[in-house]
């Protein structure tokens, strides 16, 4: 059975003791004594004394009804007229009934309160259980999010590396063009020079055959051998210059292609800019004039290949911004203890809404397939690794200026790539 503890089940049959709860028994019995003019006692349905004096023998007795059955008896020491006795019993029953109403009400009130409380506790327990479940779920969610982030970072890193690789690839294509040019004219120079040699071999044969100096002079002039000789000299000179140029490109390329470089070296930005311009000339040739104003002349401790990539990237963006007849200015200087590199173009400019996002990874305004959107991000990261800063100002239709500040005295900070 359900245990209703103290308050009790409102349905239970109340006994006389309970029905008299809270009633002043001595006042009740003395009132009854006076009303009936005798000694009155009340016993319960088992005969046990409840109020008054029930010790000695009683004469009259009348039942007190509870809900339905008698809960006790009213008894007197001496005889009392029956109508008075039942009137007294009635009076008492009225009192008991009043009390019963109160007891029932308080019992059911207690019971519903207790049930509601238990219900609340059960809901609380259920709530706590579900809360614990959610907590666990959110923890595992956190782990999964971390894993996702790791995966994304890995993919990001891969793209980042790819972008660097791709820039080297683009550069290589440019370099091939740069080298092809001198190679072409060196080849034609050497071929021409070789054809000149025929004339000199023939002349030499005349000498061997003992031709007179008069004849020799005649042939020399007829064949314009003096002119050939001068031309030969020019061809060689030009070829040597071409070879020097190829050598320079190869040196620049060697330095520039070290994208996995981790060690730092002393290098000056002016040299880096020159090298890059040397190998990348074909990129702007058709549509822009390049103006170099290089006056930094201060070597800094840096990863020169990485900085070369910055210059190459900024130059590439400047070229891309220009349709035709452009001017690209690259300036270097030392200002406030920092080497400043400026790349300025008079191209189409960057819209205001786009400008705040240009350093964000994967942000690109180029057509799909043209770029990964990592160009400026890579530049930004490299500059940051050098403890520097990069700023961009732009005006639609007027052009863009990117300014890179690199501190002269600043040890390089934890290189990202390794």
């Amino acid at each position, binding site marked *: 059975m*359900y245990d209703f503890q103290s308050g009790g089940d409102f349905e239970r049959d109340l006994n006389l003791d309970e029905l008299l709860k809270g009633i002043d028994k001595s006042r009740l019995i003395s009132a009854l004594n006076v009303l009936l003019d005798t000694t009155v006692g009340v016993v319960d349905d088992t005969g046990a004394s409840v109020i008054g004096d029930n010790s000695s023998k009683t004469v009259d007795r009348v039942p007190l009804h509870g809900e339905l059955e008698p809960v006790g008896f009213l008894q007197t020491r001496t005889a009392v007229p029956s109508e008075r006795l039942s009137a007294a019993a009635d009076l008492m029953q009225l009192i008991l*009934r009043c009390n019963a109403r109160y007891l029932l*009400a308080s019992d059911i009130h207690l019971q519903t309160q207790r049930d509601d409380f238990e219900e609340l506790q059960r809901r609380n327990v259920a709530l706590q259980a579900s809360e614990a479940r959610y907590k666990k779920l959110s923890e595992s969610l956190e782990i999964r999010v971390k894993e996702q982030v790791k995966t994304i970072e890995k993919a990001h890193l891969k793209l980042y590396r790819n972008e660097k690789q791709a820039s080297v690839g683009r550069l290589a294509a440019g370099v091939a063009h740069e080298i092809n040019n001198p190679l072409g004219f060196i080849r034609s120079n050497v071929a021409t020079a070789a054809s000149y040699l025929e004339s000199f071999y023939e002349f030499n044969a005349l000498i061997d055959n003992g031709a007179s100096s008069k004849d020799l002079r005649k042939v020399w002039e007829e064949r314009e051998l003096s002119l050939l000789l001068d031309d030969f000299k020019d061809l060689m000179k030009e070829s040597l210059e071409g070879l020097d140029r190829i050598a320079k490109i190869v040196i620049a390329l060697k330095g520039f292609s070290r994208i996995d470089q981790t060690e730092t070296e002393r290098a000056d930005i002016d040299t880096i800019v020159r090298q890059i311009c040397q190998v990348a000339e074909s990129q702007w040739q058709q549509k822009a004039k390049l103006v170099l104003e290089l006056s930094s002349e201060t070597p800094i401790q840096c990863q020169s290949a990485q900085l070369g990539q910055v210059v190459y990237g900024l130059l590439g963006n400047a070229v891309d911004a220009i349709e035709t007849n452009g001017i690209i200015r690259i300036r270097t200087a030392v200002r406030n203890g920092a080497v400043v590199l400026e790349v300025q173009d008079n191209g189409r400019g960057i819209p205001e809404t786009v400008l705040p996002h240009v350093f964000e990874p994967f942000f690109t305004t180029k057509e799909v397939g043209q770029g990964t959107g990592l160009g400026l991000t890579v530049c930004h990261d490299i500059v940051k690794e050098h403890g520097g800063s990069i700023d961009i100002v732009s005006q639609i239709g007027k052009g863009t200026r990117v300014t890179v500040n690199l501190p002269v005295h600043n040890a390089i900070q934890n290189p990202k790539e390794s």
Partner: protein
Amino acid sequence: MAAILDVLFIGRFFPKVMAQYDESSQKLTIKLVYYGPALSGKTTNLMRLHDILTPDMKGELMIMETADDRTLFFDLLPLGFRAPSGLLIKFKVYTVPGQVIHDSTRKAVLSRSDGVVFVADSQRTQSVNNGESFENLAANAARVGLDFQQLPLVVQFNKRDLPAILSEQEIMARWEKAPWPVLFSSALTGEGIIETFKALLAAVYLTCDRLYRLQSDHGLDCDSFIAQTLGGSLSSAKG
């Protein structure tokens, strides 16, 4: 969720024992409950029963109401008679408070009941209230561990004296498929009150007889069970 918990927890504390049989005092207590929406006439039903019934033992009608006649906790009418065997058959007939807010009390009063009269209000405007209250009865029965399918239940459509009520045909059409007897009444005049009570007693007798062998052990058949509960003049079955 909460409802499922209720059944799981409370169901265990309230075993489905029909009626309270007290061997030592030879007493079988049967609990009957008048359930239904607010103001449908539950208390009025009980008042009429108190007026009309004349069993051997009839307690006083205990009415617990607020100032505006709404039942606060419950009303209670105790009735009783003795079977030929000497067994005291005692009825405690309760009404629940119909107002929606008193659901905890309704649940407590309903618990361990042996039979239910669902008092519906026949007025057309009350259809929704009737439906909600009936659903509440089924839900609370489940919460207190009563098997609603097995519970002796009678449906009473009250206030037949009023205009703008659902016709008997409409009501019967709606309740056609339900397994419970449907009766019509006007508690104000007392019409149909005894018929409703008799229908419930007949259903309750079946379960009590099955459990306590009223017929074989106590010499009490269904007719005299009903007749003695109603009392003398009311029943032709008596005597």
